[in-house]
């Protein structure tokens, strides 16, 4: 009998397999221990300010939200349904036009129900970040979320 796929095998799919992450062109850059790095390529159609050519803040928002989720799975070493509870982002400087944006995250605390994550976004140098984020995720959300969804009109 085939064993279930390991999280390592699932990670590229979790990183870029959903319609939106695919549309943004996300690529899993690497997983080292519990640190996950995700890349968003620079694209003209994702620019937020046509005068400067800087990627939209929303691209960084999505990259950071997503890499934080990946870090939760890396910390758990398995896939469970999760949902972002809250996400706080500081935009320290504009990303450099023409460069890919990287998101790097680590889940630093797991409880039975909640995961706490920090992340950074950078273009050239991880030590000179574009944005910083911290997020909290609910774990094992499939049942309550689908109940909540079912209760809606």
């Amino acid at each position, binding site marked *: 009998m085939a064993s279930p796929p390991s999280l390592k095998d699932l990670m590229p799919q979790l990183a870029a397999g959903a319609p939106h992450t695919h549309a943004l062109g996300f690529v899993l850059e690497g997983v080292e221990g519990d640190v996950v790095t995700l890349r968003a390529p620079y694209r003209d159609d994702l620019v937020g300010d046509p*005068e400067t050519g800087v990627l939209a*803040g929303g691209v960084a928002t999505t990259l950071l939200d997503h890499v934080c989720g990946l870090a939760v799975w890396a910390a758990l070493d398995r896939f469970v349904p999760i949902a972002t509870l809250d996400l706080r982002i500081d935009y320290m400087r504009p990303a450099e036009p023409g460069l890919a944006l990287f998101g790097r995250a680590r889940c630093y605390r797991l409880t039975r129900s909640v995961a706490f994550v920090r992340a950074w976004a950078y273009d050239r140098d991880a030590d000179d970040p574009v944005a910083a984020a911290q997020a909290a995720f609910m774990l094992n959300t499939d049942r309550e979320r689908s109940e909540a*969804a079912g209760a809606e009109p």
Partner: protein
Amino acid sequence: MSDRQARLDAVLAGIPYARFLGVQVKLAGDELTGVLPFAQHLVGNPMLPALHGGVIGAFLEMTAMAQLALIEQRARLPRPIGVTVEYLRPGRARTTYARAQVKRVGRRIANVHVEAWQDARSAPIATLRAHFLLASQ
């Protein structure tokens, strides 16, 4: 169509990422509603299906920026400094709406709160609080 509506439409049409998401704004007098029609490429969780959390955050941020553009006519777009998004319910495969309240506008900084909903405004799917850096006048 009002001049203000035409001006806001032109601002959004000039932002490639706003076109990528399909963000629109509707004005009723001075009341602005952000509108994000559902599209398949916005899905982050194909099993529910649900909108990607980043899409909801980005939509809230754009609604805040449109509201600021409406009340503060400056040469450049406002830039987010810090944002906090709280996710209250999953964003389902249907149209999402958002309204922003500008809590304070100073010379350089604006503080804006935004709420997004789908079926009922009394059941928001997410909220955003943000500070923006305003271009100098």
